């Protein structure tokens, strides 16, 4: 299945893109996406304690992904 992944802040700079389309095996979970990202992008691993949002909601690693989901890689926030 195909999902979209958005990157922000330091994650956006590590990846070099604001947005990517990724192909994942059916029945993948958010945790699987984390592992895929860590393989493809040095730095997007346990060194960066980022949160994942799926369709604009913070989501845990066992969140089931679906075709056309929009995931977002959210580094620790620093607004204000």
């Amino acid at each position: 299945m195909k999902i979209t992944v958005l990157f922000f802040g330091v994650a956006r700079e590590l990846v070099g893109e604001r947005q990517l389309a990724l192909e994942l095996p059916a029945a993948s979970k958010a945790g699987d996406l984390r592992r895929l990202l860590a393989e493809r992008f040095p730095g997007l691993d346990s060194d960066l304690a980022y949160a994942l949002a799926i369709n604009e909601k913070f989501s845990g690693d066992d969140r089931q992904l679906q075709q056309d989901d929009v995931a977002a890689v959210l580094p620790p926030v620093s607004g204000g």
Partner: protein
Amino acid sequence: MIGSFNRMMWRLFYLPLAEVKNESTMSEFPTFISLSHSPLSESEARSLLQDRGCGAHVLFVGTVRSSSQGVAVRHLEFEAYEPMVHSVLEEIAEELRTQFGIRGVLLFHRLGRVDIGEAAVIAGVSSAHRKEAFQACAHLMDRLKQTVPIWKKEFTQDGAVWVTPTP
């Protein structure tokens, strides 16, 4: 001016339906949210928050300081996950109303480049009573810094870094 606040309608799109249990969980009081690439207007913030039923209005203005831990700051840059800023702030606003009994809630935040002395953020609440207003506005700023998806990059004489929250 008020026309720019069609964003108040974001709540209809971004609050997940499961949480909108019934009409009464939707506050009758307004939440004003604005993410802007141009200077924030404090007078607009105050006039939006003005409420004849409220005697207490607390406004926080966070400006860019000329130094950060002893290092001279040149300017800041902010980026945000905009739709999620709106949905997270709506949840925070409801939390504030439940915990502190306040009415109006406002958050203006700059995006892009912000220079020294400029306001990066304006947070405000209106309430019948002052103690709750102070507590709620302080809590709004705490929550902003904990969970609202906005990121700050600091440009100093030594280069540029994404700011990470101090624990």
